[in-house]
């Protein structure tokens, strides 16, 4: 398969892994954060940890859209859809994320009209084929998905579509990285930068990380070879005592980002003064809401939103895991009360969530450590 197989070529991967071993100082422990949940997923799926030297520790970051969404937002969205004339439309990613009274999928089983869509424009189609109903698209994601929500809203306005609205939960990546770096218990050597977000925002927004925080960051693709090559680039910088923004994912990410996508976002969205993130708390100017001229399509303005705030169960340590302070298995609930089947926190739901990735691919491997020697 083109654009995939060449980045999974076993010989090249072995060579790159050797290069990493050569570059890594055996007397040093490296802590590298992969910002994006897609990277976390790839690391576990391809078993990359098994081929990295033990002194390179990968720490998962906050870049999983459904993981950082506080539970109250889900309950707010679902409370609107309790109206039988409202269709709740969302990406498949959202469907199993627990609210205080169950996930969208559980609400669907109880009779709520919940639909999975594969793009926001599918929600418009849904609105057109259901003219007597109101379709509310529950929008999530970083700058990766925000432009498609923008284009959809522009279209809704152009076509004066009356039975459609967006419940906006879009967030932005830079404030989240800043919050991680401000966290006193965090000591990082560098970042594997988000790939998909950067196709939209480009590489410039990361320059402060290099300049002010003196940490290297390499924007990376998602195939095994991409990620290993990014680690090589980080190690080279660390060895030379440098801190720069580099772009490994040049086949997809333009340095300046995607101008058309950014313009669409600016037309439709403005920054919220503050927004609550699961685990990270309230972060100022970290999320998007619809501008006044799109008020008619803003579910938060159209409907009564209860503004539910649900605190995570006390014992759950989603915040610490989300910040990379704890490994998934160090949470008290991991694999006991909280499993992919009975998720307590969203990190156990999304395949990009570090707990789900760790549980699915790694957890029992650790429990059954003896298996590794058998396989080798």
């Amino acid at each position: 398969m083109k654009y995939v197989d060449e980045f999974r070529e076993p010989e090249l991967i072995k060579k790159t892994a050797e290069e990493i071993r050569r570059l890594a100082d055996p007397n040093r422990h490296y802590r590298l954060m992969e910002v994006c949940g897609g990277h976390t997923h790839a690391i576990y799926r391809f078993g990359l940890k098994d081929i990295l030297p033990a002194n390179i520790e990968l720490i998962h970051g906050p870049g999983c859209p459904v993981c950082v969404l506080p539970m109250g937002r889900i309950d707010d969205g679902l409370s609107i859809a309790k109206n039988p004339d409202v269709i709740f439309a969302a990406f498949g990613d959202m469907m199993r994320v627990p609210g205080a009274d169950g996930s969208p999928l559980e609400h669907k089983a109880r009779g709520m009209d919940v639909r999975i869509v594969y793009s926001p424009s599918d929600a418009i189609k849904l609105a057109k084929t259901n003219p007597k109903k109101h379709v509310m698209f529950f929008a999530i994601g970083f700058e990766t998905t925000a432009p498609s929500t923008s284009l959809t809203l522009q279209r809704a306005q152009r076509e004066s579509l009356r039975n459609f609205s967006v419940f906006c939960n879009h967030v932005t990546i830079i404030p989240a990285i800043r919050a991680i770096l401000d966290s006193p218990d965090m000591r990082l050597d560098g970042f594997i930068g988000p790939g998909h977000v950067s196709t939209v925002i480009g590489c410039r927004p990361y320059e402060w990380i290099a300049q002010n925080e003196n940490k290297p960051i390499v924007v990376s693709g998602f195939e095994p070879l991409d990620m290993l090559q990014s680690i090589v680039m980080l190690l080279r910088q660390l060895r030379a005592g440098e801190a720069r923004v580099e772009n490994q994912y040049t086949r997809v990410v333009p340095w300046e980002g995607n101008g058309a996508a950014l313009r669409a976002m600016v037309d439709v969205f403005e920054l919220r003064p503050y927004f609550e993130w699961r685990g990270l708390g309230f972060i100022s100017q970290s999320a998007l809401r619809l501008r006044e001229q799109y008020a008619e399509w803003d579910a938060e303005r159209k409907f009564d939103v209860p503004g539910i705030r649900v605190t995570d169960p006390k014992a759950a340590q989603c915040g610490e895991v989300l910040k990379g302070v704890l490994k998934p298995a160090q949470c008290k609930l991991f694999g006991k009360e909280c499993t992919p089947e009975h998720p307590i926190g969203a990190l156990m739901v999304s395949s990009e969530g570090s707990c789900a990735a760790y549980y699915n691919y790694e957890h029992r491997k650790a429990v059954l450590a003896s298996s590794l020697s058998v396989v080798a």
Partner: protein
Amino acid sequence: MAHGAGGTASRRLIEGLFAPLLYGASSEPLGDAAHLVVNGARIAITTDSFVVKPLRFPGGSIGELAVNGTVNDLAVSGAKAEALVVTFVLEAGLPTEILQAEIQAMGEAAREAGVRIAGGDTKVVEHGKADSMYISTTGIGAPIPGVEISPASVRPGDKILISGPIGDHGITILLARGELDLEADLCSDTRSVLPFVAGMARCAAPSIRWMRDPTRGGVATSLNELARDCGLGVILHEHAVPVRDGVRGACELLGLDPLHIANEGQLLAVVAAEAADRALEALRGVAGGEESRIIGEIREQPAGAVLVTTQYGGTRIVDMLVGDPLPRIC
């Protein structure tokens, strides 16, 4: 809903509620069909219900699935289907042509599989109380001489075989629903797997340890059940598992694992190491089995789990499917 998706929740429902109430304390592992002795004769019996949307899809339809699904459950228990009885649950207002087409599809599938449709029943429910048509089939079969399978007979060193590329059916259905705006040149693999079972039985009957047709939950779920039932480790070599480019591409795009995607015409088998090559030859000799492969083996460890080795020396655990596979977008 997850209780019907074939993964962990389904298993818990069966083991936690159905089994204790209906079978008492019997602790026999759950197979695809029950083998009973009636008046001194051994028979195999199984039942399955079919709820499919859309009713027709590239490569098959609900009627064809309803025949092959039950024929296959019998086949992988080591029995040749002899007769089926059918129940239709129809939604009022279903066009006659649609019903007629499905009955025809059942007739053809039954002829091809060499099984008789011996009787049936029809119920009609109010409009809106069912999604156009549900079909349930119950089949009885005759045990194939020499085939005695059980998870308890599985030994370290045994080989795992598959009769062809995985995931065709699940991805075809996902795309046929038309919600994705994705197209691929794919067909469901729905077919009878009896020829594969019969082919292997002819040359290696006593060496066949275990068989499944990995439907809902895919190869990963079937192998996890095996790992649990035999208490051994199942090792799968990812690069050896045949997957068509269309399936791989769709899975890459949607964040799904082909190992979790449903099949409707593949045989997954564990065969003693010394007979594995012979069994593979037999599978390849059956029409449609040319792409059969040995995809892994049984080891002592990791006991009770499925471990996948990647091409680069990495490993990962593959668990049962939880709920339905949901595409990942954001």
